C-alpha cells in the first residue's frame, strides 16, 4: 500500500459562503457511498477545508480512484503517502525516496509546497520548501527548480501526521449529487437524454426519470435499454427511480385526431405535461430534457416554445447549445454511447411524419389540440395510473411499484 490516503480537492463548493458546510457534508456523504462499493475499509473525514479518504486496510487503488472519479464535487484526487511526525532529516529522506518512485524520469521542473498546520514543528513552511528543494536537487541532478510554473509540485502537509503527494488525478468536478435538489429527466433511450441527465446531476441534482413506452410499437428490449442507460448514469447519481408510462393510447388518439405533421409536437406536449405531473407528485423541482436547438423538427425554437408552454416547472436543457459531436463525446466518456446506439425504436420516432412542422404556431397547435378534448384528460389520468416504477442502480433494477398497483402518496 504505497498510498495510505487520498486528499480530495473541491473547488466550487469552497466558495459557497454560509452554505459551505451543507455542500461539504453532501460531498463527504457521497464519497462514503462511493467508497462502500470498493474493496477494503475507508475512513472519510473533513478538517480545515480538506476532505481525506484514509484507507484502513488493503485496497485496490484503481478501483478506489475510479469510484472517486464518479463523485460529483471532486475536482482532484491526490494519492498521498502518510508518515508519522518525524524530524526534518528523516522527512527529507522519505521525500527523496517518494519522489524517486513517483517520477522515474526526472528530466523535469519542480517546486516544493509545504503547508504546516502543526505550528509546533520546528521548521516553518518556507524553510522546508527551501531546504527540501535543495535536497531533491542534490539527489536528482537532472531536476530543475521552477517556482512559477513547475511541471511537478511536491506537496508536504504537516498536521497530526506528515502527508506527501505529487500527483493530482482529475475528478469529475461539479457539485455533490442532491445538494441542488431533485429533478425529473425525460429519458428516451437515445444518445442525448442520458448525457443531459448526467450534466444536471453534475450540477448537484438528484435524478428521477420518466420513460414513455408504446407497445406494440416499442418492445421490451427498448425498455431494457432505458433501464441499462439509467443504470449507467446511476453510477454517478446513485439509484434512479424510473417511471415507465404506457403512452400508446394517447399516441394513437393524437394520430387519429390531429394533423400528422404536428403529431410529434403535440405528443411531446403531452409527454412534458405527464412528466410534470409525476415530477410534482414526487417532489422534483424541474424537468430535464436532452433537447439541442435545431437538432430535429421538434427542437427548433418555435417547437420548443410550443412544448415549453405546457409546464410550470423550469425545464433544464443542458444540451441546448451543444453540437451532436460534442454530445457524443460526453456519452462516450460516461459510457452510455454503446447502449444508446442499440437499434430499438423509441416512441418518439414511430409515427414521425416525413415532413413534420418546424415552425409550429402555438395558437394553431392549441386549436388542433381541442380535437382531443373528448377523451384526452381521462387518457392522461389512465397513463399516470399505469405508472410502473423501477429503482435502477448500477447492479440492475427492481420493481418499486407494479403497473397494476394503485398510486401511493409520495414521501
Amino acid at each position, binding site marked *: 500500500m504505497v498510498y495510505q490516503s487520498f486528499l480530495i480537492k473541491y473547488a466550487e463548493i469552497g466558495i459557497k459562503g454560509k452554505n459551505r458546510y451543507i455542500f461539504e457534508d453532501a460531498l463527504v456523504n457521497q464519497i462514503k457511498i462511493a467508497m462502500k462499493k470498493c474493496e477494503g475499509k475507508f475512513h472519510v473525514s473533513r478538517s480545515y477545508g480538506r476532505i481525506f479518504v484514509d484507507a484502513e486496510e488493503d485496497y485496490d487503488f484503481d478501483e478506489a480512484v475510479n469510484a472517486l472519479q464518479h463523485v460529483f464535487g471532486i475536482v482532484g484526487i491526490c494519492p498521498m503517502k502518510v508518515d508519522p511526525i518525524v524530524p526534518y532529516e528523516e522527512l527529507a529522506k522519505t521525500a527523496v525516496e517518494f519522489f524517486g518512485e513517483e517520477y522515474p524520469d526526472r528530466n523535469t521542473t519542480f517546486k516544493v509546497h509545504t503547508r504546516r498546520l502543526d505550528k509546533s514543528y520546528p521548521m516553518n513552511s518556507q524553510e522546508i520548501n527551501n531546504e527540501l528543494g535543495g535536497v531533491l536537487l542534490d539527489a536528482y541532478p537532472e531536476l530543475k527548480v521552477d517556482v512559477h510554473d513547475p511541471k511537478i509540485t511536491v506537496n508536504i502537509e504537516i498536521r497530526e501526521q506528515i502527508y506527501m503527494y505529487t500527483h493530482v488525478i482529475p475528478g469529475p468536478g461539479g457539485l455533490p449529487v442532491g445538494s441542488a435538489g431533485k429533478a425529473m429527466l425525460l429519458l428516451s433511450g437515445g444518445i442525448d437524454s442520458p448525457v443531459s441527465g448526467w450534466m444536471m446531476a453534475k450540477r448537484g441534482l438528484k435524478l428521477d426519470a420518466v420513460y414513455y413506452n408504446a*407497445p*406494440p*410499437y*416499442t*418492445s421490451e428490449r427498448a425498455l431494457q435499454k432505458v433501464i441499462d442507460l439509467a443504470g449507467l448514469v446511476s453510477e454517478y447519481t446513485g439509484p434512479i427511480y424510473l417511471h415507465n408510462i404506457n403512452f400508446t393510447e394517447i399516441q*394513437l388518439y393524437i*394520430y387519429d385526431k390531429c394533423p*400528422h405533421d404536428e403529431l410529434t409536437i403535440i405528443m411531446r406536449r403531452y409527454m412534458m405535461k405527464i412528466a410534470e405531473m409525476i415530477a410534482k407528485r414526487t417532489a422534483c423541482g424541474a424537468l430535464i430534457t436532452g433537447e439541442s436547438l435545431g437538432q430535429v423538427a421538434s427542437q427548433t425554437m418555435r417547437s420548443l416554445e410550443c412544448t415549453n408552454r405546457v409546464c410550470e416547472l423550469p425545464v433544464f436543457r443542458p444540451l441546448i447549445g451543444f453540437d451532436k459531436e460534442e454530445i457524443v463525446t460526453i456519452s462516450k466518456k460516461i459510457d452510455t454511447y454503446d447502449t444508446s446506439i442499440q*437499434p430499438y*425504436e423509441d416512441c418518439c420516432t*414511430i*409515427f*414521425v*411524419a*416525413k415532413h413534420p412542422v418546424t415552425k409550429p404556431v402555438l395558437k394553431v397547435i392549441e386549436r388542433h389540440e381541442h380535437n382531443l378534448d373528448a377523451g384526452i384528460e381521462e387518457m392522461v389520468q389512465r397513463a399516470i395510473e399505469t405508472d410502473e416504477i423501477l429503482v435502477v442502480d448500477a447492479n440492475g433494477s427492481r420493481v418499486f411499484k407494479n403497473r397494476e398497483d394503485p398510486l401511493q402518496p409520495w414521501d
Partner: protein
Amino acid sequence: MTEHYLDNSATTRVFPEVAELMNRIYLEEYGNPSSMHHKGVEAENEIRKAKDTLSGILKCQPKNLVFTSCGSESDNFALIGCARANARSGRHLITTRIEHPAVLETMKYLESEGFEVTYLPVDEMGLVSAEEVADAVRDDTIIVSIMHTNNEIGAVEPIAEIGKAIKEKNPHTLFHVDAVQAFGKAEIIPKKMHIDLLAASGHKIHSPKGVGLLYIADGVKIHNIIFGGGQQGGLRSGTENVAGIAGMAMAAGMLYGNLQSDTDKLYAMKEHLVDRVTKLRDVHVNGPQGRDGAPNIISISIKGVRAEVLLHALEEKKVYVSSGSACASNRPHLSETLQAIGTGRDYMDSTIRVSTSVMNTMEDIDACADALREAVPMLRKYSRT
C-alpha cells in the same frame, strides 16, 4: 391466456422426457466420460447410446459423428477444418446466397485467408439448381456448402440431386450440408445423398441449447479447430456435454420415430394457417407452397405493416413469432434470403416467420390467425405518414 409458441425455428421447448433424462444425468451420471472409474464409464455409456441412436437415424457408423457446442460450431468446424486440410488440392469453395450466417460469415473468413468463394443465386422460390451447382464446380473446388432447409422461408433444396451432380463433376469435392433446420423434420441419409459433412443442432429439436452434431463421412480429411485433451478421437477436444448429447439423441429418436405422422400434422397446420392469412388482403406467402416447402416454416409478408410491430402486437396475445430470421433480427438489416428471392422493398420489412413444431396444435394456429386478423387492420390504420 395460453401461450402459443410459434418460433420453433429460433429454438424449441425441451421435451419433458428429455429434460427428465438430462436431470437424471446431471444428478446421478455426472461423471467425466474420460475418467477411468465407474462414474466415467457410466457417462461414456450415455454418449455411446446417443451415438447409436443418432447413427441409426443417419444410417451411418457411430464413428462418423462428432458432438460440438452448437450448429454454428459444426458449420465452422466443417468448413474451416476441411478447407485447411484440403488446401493443397485447391482453394475454391461454393455456397449459396441464402445460407445461415454460420456458413456465410465463415466463408468470408476463409476468403480473408486466401480462399475463393462462389456464391450461387437462388430462384424466386429460394431454390438452387443442381445443374448450376455442377456448372460452378471446378477442378480446384474443395467444398460445396448448401443448406438443406432455409431458415427464413422454408425452401428445401434438392440435396440428393445436388450431391450427385457435384460428385459426377468432381468426385474429390466435399459436400457440406447445413441441416440445422431440417434435422428432426426430414429424412436425411448422408451416404445416399452424397453428403460428406452434415451439421445439426440440439436446441432446434426439443433438446437443450449448447449441443451440436457434425457428421463426417469416412475418408474426409479435416483438421480440428479446437485443441485440448483429445476427446472424441482427437477431433474435438473438450469434456463432452453428456446430458446435452443424451438429450439430443433422445429427442431425435422421438422425432424420427413419428416422422411420417408428424410431417402430415405439420403440413396440415401450415395449410390451415396459409388458408386463413391469405384471406387478409395484400398478404404474400414466401417460398415454395404446400408440400414443396418445409412443413414447419411459413414466411408471410403483410404489406403496410412493420414486422417488428406486428411481432409485438402478436406478443400481446401471447403468440410468439419472429420477424425475418431470428438469429439476425437483433441487427435490423435487410434479409439476405428475402433479397435473394426478389422480395419487393415494401414487403421486405413486413415479413414474419411462423415456425411450428410437433408440440403445437391447431389451436395455436387459430390463435395466431385470430391475432393477425385483429392486429393487421389496426396496424395498417396507424402507419408512418
